[in-house]
């Protein structure tokens, strides 16, 4: 998207479409103090970067955003004091922060073959939906988190915000632990085998394998053509540790012409060797699973999750290169999400204009009526916004629950006190 169009359209977007109220509902978590001590940072035109912005209320945020029309908004941690006052305080430290995950398609460059770098298509997007499903399950089932917001990063990745109270107050050490728990694929350029399962398969890994297994052949073997060329086969064989085993595997693969057949043959060959008790192959009993994980398990940028003060791009930003809105993704229907059909700032403005023109035409001069309908409802943002509101209701209900519990205790306490007085 070219820059001058963007700077023309951003003011309109920030005045008419950006969901300030819901945004505030989210980031305040029911407390003004939480919102006012939150760090925001803005990237303006020409890469001007301002950090440590904070706002006392929704109005001042709104005014500043409208005034600056940032190309990008990042959200940081909630600090002990309002970040804009940090110079006045001796001690300035983050005290709460959502547990966040950042997944970027470039980390898949050694396994995806359809696109490279910044490009993304429906084939490689499948890595993202798979990542979302696997991590969402781990966060919910293993750690018991409930309020998880998944967001499209605007071009080729996804972000995750775990907003449960417990998640927001995790210590850095526990964040690190959870992040490594979720990180399975490790090793750089010179480590060909990147997933190692020693002796037993942890239940979370097993679950991930189950999720991957159902789509692996179609997605990795067929669409990505995992075994479709000499070079890729060599890469694949690199995962197998020893020279003679590699040769055996190569012989099996060479018998077949298509990738899918090769894969099936390899799986069968491995099973046979395992059953016949071949010692060499039995040393890596989880080889098939390890391969599937290496090719499809989510690859997260672990440093983002570890720290408390790492910034992450805010939902509802406009990606400056693609013009796409960073909209929430509903994890229940992630398979239907198509990055190509995400609304861009241009289509949104057109939609609003088209709607208004149509209404005007039908209703004549009664402009008031047109104005009463919220602008986002006239656009394709309507659906993602509803998903966001549903997420907010979830958080608010649990906050309500907490408050009732507290006040319930209070009532009981008062009652108990009274009882004491009577009996005395």
């Amino acid at each position: 998207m070219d820059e001058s169009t963007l700077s023309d359209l951003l003011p309109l977007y920030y005045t008419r479409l950006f969901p300030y109220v819901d945004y505030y509902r989210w980031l305040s978590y029911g407390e003004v103090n939480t919102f006012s001590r939150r760090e925001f940072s803005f990237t303006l035109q020409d890469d001007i970067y301002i950090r440590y912005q904070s706002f006392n209320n929704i109005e001042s945020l709104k005014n500043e955003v409208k005034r600056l029309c940032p190309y990008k908004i990042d959200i940081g941690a909630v600090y002990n004091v309002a970040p804009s006052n940090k110079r006045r305080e001796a001690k300035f430290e983050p005290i709460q922060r959502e547990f966040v995950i950042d997944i970027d398609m470039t980390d898949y460059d050694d396994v995806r073959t359809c696109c490279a770098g910044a490009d993304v298509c429906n084939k490689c997007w499948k890595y993202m939906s798979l990542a979302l499903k696997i991590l969402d399950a781990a966060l919910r089932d293993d750690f018991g988190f409930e309020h998880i917001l998944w967001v499209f990063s605007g071009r080729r990745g996804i972000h995750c915000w775990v907003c449960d109270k417990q998640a927001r107050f995790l210590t850095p050490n526990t964040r690190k632990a959870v992040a490594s728990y979720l990180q399975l694929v490790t090793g750089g350029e010179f480590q060909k085998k990147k997933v190692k399962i020693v002796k037993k398969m942890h239940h979370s890994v097993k679950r991930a394998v189950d999720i991957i297994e159902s789509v692996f052949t179609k997605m990795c073997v067929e669409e990505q053509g995992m075994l479709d060329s000499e070079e890729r086969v060599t890469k694949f064989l690199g995962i197998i540790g020893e020279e003679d085993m590699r040769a055996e595997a190569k012989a099996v693969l060479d018998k077949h012409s298509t990738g899918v057949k090769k894969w099936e043959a390899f799986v069968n060959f491995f099973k046979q060797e395992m059953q016949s008790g071949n010692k060499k192959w039995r040393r890596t009993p989880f080889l098939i699973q390890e391969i599937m994980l290496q090719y499809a398990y989510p690859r997260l940028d672990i440093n983002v999750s570890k720290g408390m003060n790492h910034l992450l791009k805010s939902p509802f930003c406009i990606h400056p290169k693609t013009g796409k809105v960073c909209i929430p993704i509903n994890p229940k229907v992630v398979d239907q999400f198509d990055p190509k059909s995400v609304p861009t700032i241009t289509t949104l403005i057109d939609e609003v204009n088209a709607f208004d023109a149509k209404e005007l035409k039908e209703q004549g001069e009664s402009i008031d009526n047109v104005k009463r309908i919220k602008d986002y409802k006239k656009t394709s943002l309507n659906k993602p916004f509803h998903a966001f509101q549903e997420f907010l209701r979830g958080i608010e209900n649990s906050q309500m629950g907490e408050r009732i519990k507290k006040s319930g205790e209070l009532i009981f306490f008062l009652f108990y006190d009274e009882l004491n007085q009577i009996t005395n």
Partner: protein
Amino acid sequence: MDFTPSCKRRRTVKHEKNVLLELYPHDLQMYKVPPKGEIKLVEFQDLTLERQKVLQLLEIALAQQHKSLDELKQAFRNSLKKEGFHHYARLITAEGCSSHNDIDLEARRKDHISHFVMRLAYCLKAELQQKMLSLETELFKLRFSSLDKEGLTQFLATSGLHYTPVSKEFKDENRDKLITSTTKDGDFDSINFYEMSFHEVNELICDRRVFVKKGIAYVPQKDLISVFVQHFKNNLATELNIAKKSLMVNLEDDDRLQTFLKALPECYAGMSKVVWQSENTPISKLDDLSKTSYPLCMRVMHEHLKSTHHLRNTGRLQYQLFLKGIGVSLEDNIEFWRTELCKNPQLTDDKFSKEYLYQIRYNYGKLGRRVDYRPHGCNKLILDPVGAGEVHGCPYKHWDVDSLTKKLADCKIAPSDIGEITRLSKEGHYILACTKFFESSHKQMPGNMFMHPNAYYAESRKILNKDEFKGDETEASMLTEDMLVPISPEKLPPQPMKKNHNIPETNKSVTPRTAEKKIRSIDRKNKMDPLNIEALLNDDSD
């Protein structure tokens, strides 16, 4: 620093046995109650110096990366005995409360007092706090693992941590998951599982060694150790900060203690510290240096950068800081990266200024937080994650055998040495593998053991410069920030060590007094602001 324990001779105060027994009923403690009563200054100092040396030995033992806890314990215990620290050798394998004779009680008392003095000495700087935290935690871990059943029960009872085992029904219901998600040890039906929040067992979560469901971790008996270790660590971290605050108030005008406490950490510095080169290294020489004096990790990054004109973020960070450490000036560093990265046709000069320049200037403390960053040590290189397509990190840890063998052959390492290096790296002795690489490429052992790429470089320059100029004026050009530890002889071939007999001599020359002067002058030069400390925390250890 040559120190022999001499407290017995000096101590005059006799302690009543039953008083001691009441104070120290167990070999292990969480150090929740500070010692009370009077102590002679000399004993106070002796006890503390002794503990410091003990921790130092532990650091060396840890650096040898023993395969199992038992092996580590054995090696550490041997070195303690050799140095005459019999009380500590005893504590390392103490079972808890199986015996309470005079020697046991004396050991426990020493342990208690010296731990608290160490807190005072190590609380002042974040860097030192971190060091004490990690070493004391390791010490605790070793000692905890020696407890017998009775010792463990008694310790649990006094520690104030209470957990209840889960019901048999729950175990049966989740049998498979409990088995596959925890490391196997003994008969499933007889093992108790304890439930607790996942926050309490970071280590187990981190390594995926525990069954977690809806935020609850189910920890088998034998893994309870990591619950206590974490508890111990958290507690000590908090206490160190409290100690820092109260020390500033309470010891303000006691000169004797101030001097001692400040000088203490300097007496034995770690081997994982940076060695800065004071001489300017021209970038035109980097190609040659990368072949002669770089450790493999840096050589790989240099070559990757030269051939692909690209290096991913963490790699750039590590290599830029290494260059900074070997004496490449900021301007040269910028020039070097600009030349290399811009050979990539897609990267314009403008894009370089926007995306890469900032990082380099940031690393030199010219921008952003203005922290003068230090080159990363081996620990960090080994522990930092390496993702797909990245070439940074420790080759001995992050490379598979095939790639490593090939690379070593490219570096013209003798085939017999290649086998040795890959074996060491496979067994997890990364530092030893690196030392072997050094030996093989320099045809001699390094004078000092290193745990830092920049220390490797310094050692290499020392040898090569001597060869080149046959003079020792080069020694003076080395700003060694600390004294390096001579290589522990057990694990390495003996013959080259003879040359290095003079090395410990230099260590002796640094007494607490001179070390203390050193501290003061450092303090004056660069005052630490809060941000600075924060950055140092992320620096070497952990």
